[in-house]
């Protein structure tokens, strides 16, 4: 089974702290994603990566950065945490489709509930 593991299920940080959320997948997937989940807003894409050291901004990248130094690991960084970044963060990975008709599935981690106080 594919496993996507997020380093923490719950995290409490102080305003202004630098926060690292780690995600590791064990299936050699090329694509990795960070989503933020808020009630009434669904899941919104923060950043994604399609290869080592490659990244693309999603819909809400402000206040976040990412790092992908190894294929299996994708880190989300909050440079200076703020209370409006209190949320649930979900990591996902997905293999690269072979062609335009391939419909490969995305696999999600169990989420990190971050509280910034």
């Amino acid at each position, binding site marked *: 089974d594919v496993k996507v593991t997020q380093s923490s299920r719950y995290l409490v940080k102080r305003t202004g702290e630098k926060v690292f959320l780690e995600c590791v997948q064990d299936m050699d997937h090329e*694509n990795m*994603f960070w*989503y933020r989940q808020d009630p*009434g*807003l*669904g*899941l*919104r*894409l923060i950043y*994604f990566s*399609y290869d080592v050291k*490659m990244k*693309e901004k*999603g819909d809400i990248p402000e206040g976040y950065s990412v790092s992908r130094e190894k294929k299996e690991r994708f880190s989300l960084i909050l440079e200076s945490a703020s209370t409006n970044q209190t949320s*649930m963060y*979900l990591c*996902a990975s*997905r293999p*690269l*489709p072979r*062609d*335009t*008709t*391939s*419909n490969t*599935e*995305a696999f*999600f981690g*169990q*989420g990190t509930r971050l509280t910034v106080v």
Partner: protein
Amino acid sequence: AQTVTQSQPEMSVQEAETVTLSCTYDTSESDYYLFWYKQPPSRQMILVIRQEAYKQQNATENRFSVNFQKAAKSFSLKISDSQLGDAAMYFCAYRSVRANFGNEKLTFGTGTRLTIIP
């Protein structure tokens, strides 16, 4: 940009009954994929069912089936013989077919919380 709308924030159904969750989407593309994901209290997102837009036949997975209406841009999920384990948040999602990098993201709706009444 594509958008996905789930107009039912909450739904409830009696155990063993059938329930339908609604989803509409907006896109200018002719080819794409649609998904329903389930998020139980454990928070683990699980793929329930997927549909390729080029396929006319509605997808089914055991007790789960979809009603895909391409012209109406509607993609509803029907759960038959509802079970207590079906209680969860359900998300509808859209993805472009193009395999170009930058088009791999899933666009999600806001979710529907399904309660099963024993």
